[in-house]
């Protein structure tokens, strides 16, 4: 297998953006290409989750490639719901690892804030099992079911869950690319309105616009892709045997660690899919980064804060950096690259050698774990 390196990384500021989606994706892609010192990649992988519904355009790989002046560069689009960005990264990685291409541009983006929130929820909700949707199940509703079970069965407290949001907002306040750049208190979180009991508004990530990109290369570079893993689970929540752990994360982590030839104890910094605050706690344990039943306590103790034993979501995570769906998986990897190169200004984790990114697709039906290391 050909070794694969990340030659360049770039992203837009995440938030409410007025530019059209292809322009946002071009902004991120051009930043990544400039960072790599490459004018034109051999191939492009595009990730968008619902461009047909959000912006009304299809054939989006050609749309984005043409907009950037790459109409003659082979481009394809990848989709695995909210983890599409990580899936696109895998696709680019696989092309180079297989020796099919020498350089691939991976760009993910989404534009959502121009639509009303109920409409956005409905579009995202189409990734849920159709039968469960007829009962009004939305992502927050299913996450509410998971959270209630987590609190009752595992004894996780509302404070532990809320501290995830407090920590990630504190990190986001140091990230000029983040959607939310202000700190919040635990009282702000605990007093925010109930969305899907026991989940409150400030336990949930925002609706955001933005794009992120990386250039993958067979040429030796400062950051190497050490391992990528993919795990899957049932589309319907009612077909799952357990609610408080995600089998798709555990499978993806096993595969990624095996490919990287390391265990979770070798990870220095992680970007974890905190679309809902309790998911960060579940995922840290599923990834083996924190022993079972200890993630809540570790979060309250500051172990996962920027100056803690294992900094988690230094970018602010989905909660504060924002969650422009298909951009997110790539944005997590951009943050990992910056952390490994020592260029995460204002939020740099000291001496990070290995970084892990974890992305959840749908309600954990299609998850990814990627391990990067200093080349």
């Amino acid at each position, binding site marked *: 297998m050909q070794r694969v390196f990340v030659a360049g990384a770039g992203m837009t500021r995440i938030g409410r953006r007025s530019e059209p989606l292809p322009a946002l994706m071009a902004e991120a892609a051009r930043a990544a290409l400039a960072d790599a010192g490459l004018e034109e990649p051999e191939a492009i992988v595009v990730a968008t989750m619902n461009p047909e519904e959000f912006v009304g355009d299809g054939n989006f790989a050609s749309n984005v490639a043409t907009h950037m002046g790459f109409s003659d560069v082979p481009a394809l689009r990848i989709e695995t719901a909210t983890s599409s960005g990580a899936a696109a990264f895998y696709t680019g990685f696989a092309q180079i690892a297989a020796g099919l291409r020498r350089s691939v541009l991976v760009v993910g983006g989404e534009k959502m804030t121009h639509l009303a929130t109920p409409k956005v929820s409905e579009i995202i909700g189409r990734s849920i099992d159709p039968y469960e949707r007829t009962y009004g*199940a*939305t992502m927050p509703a299913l996450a509410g079911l998971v959270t209630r079970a987590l609190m009752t069965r595992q004894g996780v407290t509302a404070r532990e869950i809320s501290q995830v949001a407090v920590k990630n907002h504190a990190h986001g306040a140091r990230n000029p690319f983040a959607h939310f750049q202000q700190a919040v208190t635990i009282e702000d979180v605990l007093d925010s309105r109930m969305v*899907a009991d026991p989940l409150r508004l400030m336990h949930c990530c925002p609706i955001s616009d933005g794009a992120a990109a990386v250039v993958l290369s067979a040429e030796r570079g400062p950051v190497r892709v050490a391992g990528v893993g993919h795990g899957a689970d049932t589309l319907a929540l009612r077909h799952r045997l357990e609610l408080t752990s995600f089998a798709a994360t555990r499978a993806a982590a096993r595969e990624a660690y095996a490919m990287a030839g390391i265990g979770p104890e070798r990870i220095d910094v992680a970007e974890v899919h905190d679309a809902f605050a309790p998911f960060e706690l579940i995922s840290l344990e599923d990834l083996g980064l924190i022993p079972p039943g200890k993630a809540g306590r570790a979060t309250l103790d500051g172990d996962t804060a920027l100056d803690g034993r294992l900094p988690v979501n230094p970018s602010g995570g989905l909660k504060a950096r924002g969650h422009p769906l298909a951009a997110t998986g790539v944005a997590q990897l951009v943050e990992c690259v910056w952390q490994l190169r020592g260029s995460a200004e204002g939020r740099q984790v000291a001496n990070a050698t290995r970084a892990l990114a974890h992305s959840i697709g749908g309600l954990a039906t299609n998850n990814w774990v990627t391990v990067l290391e200093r080349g």
Partner: protein
Amino acid sequence: MMETIAASKCPRCDMVVAPPATYCPYHPVAMAPATLSGVGEIVSFTTLHTPPEGFRSPLHIALVELDGGGRFVCHGAGTRGLKIGATVAIEAVDDVYYFSHLGAVERARLFWRRTGRAGDRVNAIARSLAKRVWKRRQRAAS
């Protein structure tokens, strides 16, 4: 009248799903039809305060583990006093399933109807009450 719920069972792993599915979610084999009674235990529940279009707020949704296996999503009129592990009855109104809590008397009545011999019925009621007390103790201990 106790509701019956159409389900299906995997001939390979015995997994039961409701409503019925063509193939087992875990095996590429055709499922066999099965029927479950509309009684089960709450696995989790939530109240949605901003439900999607076509639903009224607050929207109560529960995941129920039916007797005989198989988890089921349904609506409810309320979640006051509801706990994970509580026994609920499920009823269909216009093809939409709703859960309702069962009090001690209703539980007794349910088991009275369900089992055959009088001794078995008393036994079932006693077991059900004992199970409930045991669960409450376990929760208090944890």
